[in-house]
């Protein structure tokens, strides 16, 4: 109640930003896809199949980014009780789950021609699958608890405990010798991707990031609207006062 001003200012900003972000995401995606599909070379080893990378790798980045966003928002909501923090965390979860799912599916499609299998239980693949289930558990927890203030705090705990999985995913390919190849872009010693392939990859990464931002704003506004409705429904009865006789 006392912090209503803040979400309202946020909503005004969100209404203005959403179309800008959406357009930017679309334009970047068009450029990215043009480079990825037509204006980048085939790989010396993988041939044309390498183009799956341009949809797969950014999705995997976003999967990790979304969970990190959730964890940070949960921490902020926990410590500073900022009213937008738990709205952010809650709204990020389904988007993150979708990116994780996309990463799993495109990875599977890439794995079949390259490795010779749709799926392998190696450390990277397994830990990303676990990430997907962590997202589902988080979403389930939110939807199971009716009281939103309580749900926010309880889900924040679940989110923060699950964060242990993020470094495991990132370093799984270095710690265990796995089927999945090691990091190519975010690694010590610079990327091991040729510039002609790095450009479309980064463009697609930016497009995914902008898409995430736009989707997040939309779903946060929906969540705020839902909360306003809930508040209106409840205000039928004024809080009790105490009289000491």
């Amino acid at each position, binding site marked *: 109640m*006392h912090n209503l001003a803040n979400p309202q200012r946020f909503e005004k900003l969100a209404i203005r930003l959403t179309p800008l972000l959406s357009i930017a995401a679309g334009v970047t995606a068009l450029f990215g896809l043009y480079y990825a599909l037509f204006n980048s070379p085939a790989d010396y080893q993988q041939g044309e199949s390498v183009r799956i990378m341009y949809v797969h790798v950014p999705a995997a980045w976003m999967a990790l980014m979304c969970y990190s966003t959730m964890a940070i928002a949960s921490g902020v909501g926990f410590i500073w009780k900022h009213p937008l923090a738990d709205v952010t965390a809650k709204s990020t979860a389904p988007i993150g789950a979708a990116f994780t799912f996309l990463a799993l599916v495109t990875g599977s499609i890439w794995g079949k021609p390259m490795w010779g299998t749709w799926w392998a239980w190696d450390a990277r693949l397994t830990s990303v699958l676990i990430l997907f289930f962590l997202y589902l558990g988080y979403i389930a927890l939110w939807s199971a608890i009716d009281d939103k203030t309580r749900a926010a705090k309880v889900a924040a705990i679940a989110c923060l405990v699950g964060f242990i999985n993020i470094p495991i995913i990132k370093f799984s390919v270095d710690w265990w010798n796995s089927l999945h190849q090691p990091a190519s872009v975010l690694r010590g010693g610079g990327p091991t991707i040729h510039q002609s392939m790095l450009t479309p990859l980064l463009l697609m990464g930016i497009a995914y990031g902008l898409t995430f931002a736009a989707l997040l704003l939309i779903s946060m506004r929906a969540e705020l609207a839902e909360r306003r409705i809930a508040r209106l429904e409840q205000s039928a009865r004024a*809080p*009790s*006062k*105490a*009289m*000491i*006789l």
Partner: protein
Amino acid sequence: MDERPADAGRLIAARDIAAQRGGRLVLSGVTLAIGPGDLFILRGPNGAGKTTLLRTLAGLSQRAAGALKRSDNASVFLGHADGVKAALTARESLSFWRMIYSAPPAIIERAISRLNIFPFLDQRGASLSAGQRRRLALCRIVISRRPVWLLDEPTSGMDAVSIRAVVDLIAEHCRDDGAAVVATHEPLDFGPGRTIMLDEAA
């Protein structure tokens, strides 16, 4: 008894507190100071926030606004549920709570006799009546040796004799420099004491 310097010797002091339940603000602007000897009867219609207020004073529920000061181990809370395990005998329950509150045996003897637990001391919780379970639950309150008793419908399910015993017990506790806040719908007569009316209109 009413004229004491502000906050001196206060066990629990609530200033302007508000509390939520299920996302709805049920209480607001409640100011209350509890010191030794104070006995409050908490009244109000269903849903007025009696339980919420008790839980907030107990420090079990977060308050939505206001300030709450509690001295260490100031209070003990008895809710609607008795905390009596079906699989444990009354004796086992008591010895468990004795360990939790590190109470001397004499206190237990006293609690057993005052609340007349003896007849069902070796019966399991499952076979006790609602009133018997309630009496056993009150034993825990006595054993805790905490000064402020926060009791939610302490006499529910009890017969007239037991109700009398409980009322006497609470009154005596307050005379011995204890304190109590008792939420009840029943017309209990504690003698001296004040009433807290919780109401939309109040």
